């Protein structure tokens, strides 16, 4: 077992020697450029609605990974922030008649508030307790979505107007919407990157590696944990709100605990604690669901099996393995 060395960490960290850092930042810039290019040209090859879904989930998984990979906290209830934001932005666009940019903003803000509230309860414990508490809290949001009048029960909120951006650009056109989603996606990704590489991000990693030491150095650990929780929830909300506008729908799927499980799967496949792993994981999972839709119910069996295989023998994830091969953090 080669894993014994990092037996106590749920993450696959790649050590970052200080002298390599400048080099790595430049390398990451290149990757960002590559992603931006890919995003720009992908609609020529694939169905734009599918690509928008990949981007929404990519952002979702990246936001989730911010908490798991860099904060060291496994939330099993991230569907709550994703779904709550989807519902709020759907409501904002449909019932309150807000333009899409404000609707998405409203969704993300709602997720931030919810994250602040739930985070305060959940971060009192770590590890398994934390996972269970986040799961149970998310379950309450699920029940609200199921039973409240405004959320439309199992119908969800349907027929959400895509609207016109800033009163100028009609988002009814798939390509116009695609451009907007691409911008949100890249901005969200840049935000994650920025957070991870900021002094705040370094403290987070220090806490994850050695909590007592961080404490003794005078860092107020709970505050850092709460802050990263809220950031993760907010970016998750950004993804959920955007998804609601793309699909013109907010539904129970978005808040169900299987959604929380799915985002864990994406992150696990792609590589926890890597910058680009969650994107790869999201692409793999969404594409799998998309291209294998004809096999219907067996998808969940395959997903489960992938889960088992990843946990048993592929804990680094696709990008994690790549990073090890390249000897560079990705």
């Amino acid at each position, binding site marked *: 077992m080669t894993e014994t060395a990092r037996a106590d960490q749920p993450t696959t960290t790649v050590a970052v020697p200080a002298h390599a850092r400048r080099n790595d930042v430049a390398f990451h810039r290149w990757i960002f450029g590559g992603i931006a290019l890919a995003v720009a040209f992908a609609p020529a090859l694939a169905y734009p609605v599918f690509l928008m879904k990949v981007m929404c989930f990519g952002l979702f998984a990246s936001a989730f990974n911010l908490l798991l990979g860099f904060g060291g906290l496994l939330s099993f209830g991230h569907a709550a922030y994703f779904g709550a934001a989807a519902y709020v932005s759907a409501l904002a666009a449909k019932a309150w008649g807000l333009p899409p940019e404000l609707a998405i903003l409203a969704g993300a803000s709602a997720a931030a508030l919810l994250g602040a509230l739930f985070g305060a309860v959940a971060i009192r414990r770590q590890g398994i307790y934390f996972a269970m508490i986040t799961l149970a809290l998310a379950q309450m949001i699920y029940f609200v979505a*199921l*039973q409240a009048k405004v959320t439309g*029960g199992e*119908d*969800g909120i349907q027929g959400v107007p895509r609207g016109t951006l800033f009163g100028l650009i009609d988002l009814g056109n798939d390509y116009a919407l695609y451009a907007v989603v691409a911008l949100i996606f890249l901005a969200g990704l840049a935000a994650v990157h920025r957070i991870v590489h900021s002094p705040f991000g370094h403290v987070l990693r220090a806490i994850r590696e050695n909590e007592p030491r961080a404490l003794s150095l005078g860092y107020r650990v709970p505050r850092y944990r709460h802050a990263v929780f809220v950031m993760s929830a907010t970016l998750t909300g950004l993804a959920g709100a955007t998804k609601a506008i793309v*699909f013109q*729908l907010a539904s129970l799927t978005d808040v169900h605990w299987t959604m929380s499980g799915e985002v864990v799967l994406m992150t696990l496949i792609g590589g926890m604690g890597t910058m680009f792993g969650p994107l790869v994981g999201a692409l793999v999972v969404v594409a799998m669901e998309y291209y294998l839709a004809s096999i219907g119910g067996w998808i969940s069996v395959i997903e489960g099996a992938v889960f088992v295989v990843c946990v048993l023998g592929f804990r680094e994830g696709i990008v994690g393995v790549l990073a090890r091969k390249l000897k560079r953090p990705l």
Partner: protein
Amino acid sequence: MMRSGPGRLVVAIAMLFAAAGTARAEIAVKVGVLNDRSGIYSDLAGEGSVIAAHMAVEDFKAAEKGIKVDIVSADHQNKPDIGSTIARQWYDQDGVDAILDVPTSSVALAVSQVTREKNKVFIVSGAGASDITGAQCSPNTIHWTYDTYSLAKGTAGAMVKNGGKSWFFLTADYAFGHALERDAAAIVKAAGGSVVDSVNVPFPATDFSSFLLQAQGSKADVIGLANAGGDTINAIKQASEFGIGEGGQKLAGLLVFLSDVHALGLKAAQGLVLTEAFYWDLNEGTRAWSKRFAERAGGKMPTMVHAGAYAGLQHYLKAVEALKSKDPMAVLAKMKATPTDDPIFGKGSIRVDGRTLHDMYLFEVKKPDESKGPYDYYKLITTIPAAEAFRPLNEGSCPLAK
């Protein structure tokens, strides 16, 4: 399902060759059967609806009539987001002209919206919300088999007439459950009965005992089950456990399918009164068709949803044949102008709001000793004529009806 780039090209070329090969095929129609293939409604819709669609094409002899029909299918997993995504992609990318079946009302309403936006044709068989031809009706949607109103009308109307004056509703606490209760309560009151009380049961639920106990305590004549699928099955099972039938109270299932009765077994389901649009053992026509269906479906008898998928698609093909075109608006107008007629539902018509009118039937589930074997489950109590079975046009608040 969906192919991109080179894949699409290959398909296009293949289709060109196919078109060249069959010179007589003047119109190519693509029909998508979209339903639950893995979840709670996969037994009452699922692969059976695909079989029914293929049978409709074969029986119609579409190829001989110059119509080439392609049937594709997908699983919407009872989720509106997945359903609307598939529908959008079918219309945008895969050249699907009409979508068929779509059980689960929330998904059907979502698909109806996409169909209207893309101006295609949507023939509902599996879903039941009366809103599909009511407040949320669409010129592009035809609702074939049944709806919550017609089921409530049949079951609740008949039970009140037979002395079940006071009702207690066990309502699944979600939009569809409330719609069922609303439609049934209106009919109970209109028929001179009363609603004593109702309890909202969290959805989905496995344990109904405490709610059944409340219903029992209410001393109402009838306990109306405003729920579906697994919830209904559990409620009926547990009702027999608490001796509810023996106490003189009757159970009314507002949405029960043949496949549910099959799952329950006659011992638990006996005496249950229910309404359906179709039963395999109604007449020569239904028996002959069902027998052919069962041969292809591994012995399973068709549900009314399968029957509706068959009849709905045939009616669509008839309109395409008559018009020699698949222009959606023209086909929809033709479908509504032509009386429906098939060996399964008999004669009927399609209203301007998209509601198909045909006879409905009130059945009672047989006792175990009355049944001659598997699928011999129902006794016909009465036939509800098409004119009375469905909600009057002016009560549905459908904008098309004005």
